[in-house]
């Protein structure tokens, strides 16, 4: 987390600078099947974040040394487009994107039935087109839809959502200012149907009570996004490519 303290992030009436309640999410919009070349794809707009995910596979895993004998490898790449942020980002991977790719892959491997496809590979390409705050969560939400759109069998969908702390108050779904000047950030990957956590990171400063509130908010937000995910997939099968 960035600076602490001297930036005002809550209004006098307890609402946030953009008018949201402390447990209110930014608007979310989800579409499935947006990329013709992919086996599955999804677009998610969450606040001002925009992510597109393409899924390819299952396909033969090569080189052979990356194959797993009893399951598929999830080959996940999280990438920010050069024009996705205020200052241009140099193309290519950096340490941040590699870490996010790794933990995202591990989260997705927790829900995909990877045992069905031994020795194969499923490629998940997460492209962030516009970044506000919380892109790793948006990528997870979109990846789950794209995997389902590709017909990859999963135990459940997974939802990416974050809570945080600003002015000593726990809030749901940090926006950019809250992310820059807040006191803690807790991105989670939640399986709403089973109540499991497949992804979790945290930095900043949270007491145990604050942590519990933050987790509660995340589960609440995840339930709402889950409905949008299912609706997007239903639209896709009802209406063909919904581009």
């Amino acid at each position, binding site marked *: 987390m960035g600076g602490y303290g001297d930036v005002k992030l809550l209004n006098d009436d307890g609402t946030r600078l953009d008018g949201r309640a402390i447990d209110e999410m930014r608007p979310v919009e989800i579409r499935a099947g947006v*990329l013709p*070349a992919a086996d599955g794809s999804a677009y998610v707009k969450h606040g001002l974040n925009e992510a597109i995910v*393409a899924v390819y596979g299952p396909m033969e895993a090569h080189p052979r040394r990356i194959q797993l004998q009893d399951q598929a490898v999830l080959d996940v790449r999280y990438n920010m487009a*050069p024009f996705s942020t205020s*200052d241009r980002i140099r193309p290519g991977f950096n340490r941040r994107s590699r870490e996010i790719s790794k933990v995202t892959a591990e989260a997705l491997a927790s829900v995909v039935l990877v045992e069905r496809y031994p020795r194969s590979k499923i490629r998940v390409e997460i*492209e962030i087109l*516009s970044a*506000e705050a919380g892109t790793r969560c948006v990528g997870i939400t979109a990846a789950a839809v794209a995997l389902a759109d590709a017909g990859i069998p999963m135990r459940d969908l997974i939802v990416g959502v974050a809570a945080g702390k600003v002015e000593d108050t726990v809030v749901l779904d940090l926006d950019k200012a809250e992310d820059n000047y807040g006191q803690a950030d807790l991105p989670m990957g939640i399986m709403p149907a089973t109540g499991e956590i497949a992804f979790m990171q945290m930095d900043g400063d949270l007491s145990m009570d604050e942590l519990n509130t933050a987790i509660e908010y995340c589960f609440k937000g995840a339930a709402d996004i889950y409905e949008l995910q299912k609706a997007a997939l239903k639209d896709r099968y009802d209406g063909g490519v919904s581009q």
Partner: protein
Amino acid sequence: MSTQTVPQLLRQQLAILAESDQRIDGRGRWEMRDIDLEVGCLYNAEGSAKVTWGDTVIYAGVKFEIRTPYDDRPAQGSLMCGSELRPVAHRKYDPGPPSPESIELGRVVDRGIRESGCIDMANLCIVPGEKVWMVVLDIHVLSDGGNLFDAAGLAAIAALRNATVPAARFDVGEDYQLPVSLTPIMTTFTRVGGRLVYDANEEEELGGDERVSVTLGDTGAMHSMQKGLKGTFTPPELAEILDVAAEHCKNLRELVDSKVN
């Protein structure tokens, strides 16, 4: 890559279709696929465009950086054009350092823009000899359904014509529109079934031969050309496609004009 059987069957099919002047998706030899062009669609980009060209989807985004000018052009801004042919775009693309295909795409789009002289570089000077704007144009291919060159070229010029110089954010004055006075357009022809066709789709590229891309400016002059892939062509064939190119460039320029003000 190593499975050459499908392309061989596909090549035969394309040759048979060509004999009766047909194409695999029913188009005429010089006919274009459906195109959709959106501009101003990316929140953090200073200029942007999304082109949906058949099954090809490409975004272009413009950002600005402040740089020291080159010694020999102290009062001129500069342009950098990158392309990313990332694995998102097709099953066939691998991760890793930029492929030759990716580099070629970026450089050919760059030359078409740069050589047309469409950007008024003198207008991008902040302090002569000290600070000038660098226009950074990034091509981001999300779905490769064939004819990336033309779709990328179209996204590039549309994003540039949509762009605003973010002077206020950098504390060097007021924002103003990037001065783009011309609209260079690229058209690409591919040998399919033995003859050159316009706007090859993915299958035609897979079973086709050489590609010839031409960028024409507003006055009809040529600003860049690139022959790629295995195969040859003759001067009369070139003359023929240049006539077709002129017509399509005019139409596509009108499309851009209709989307940006």
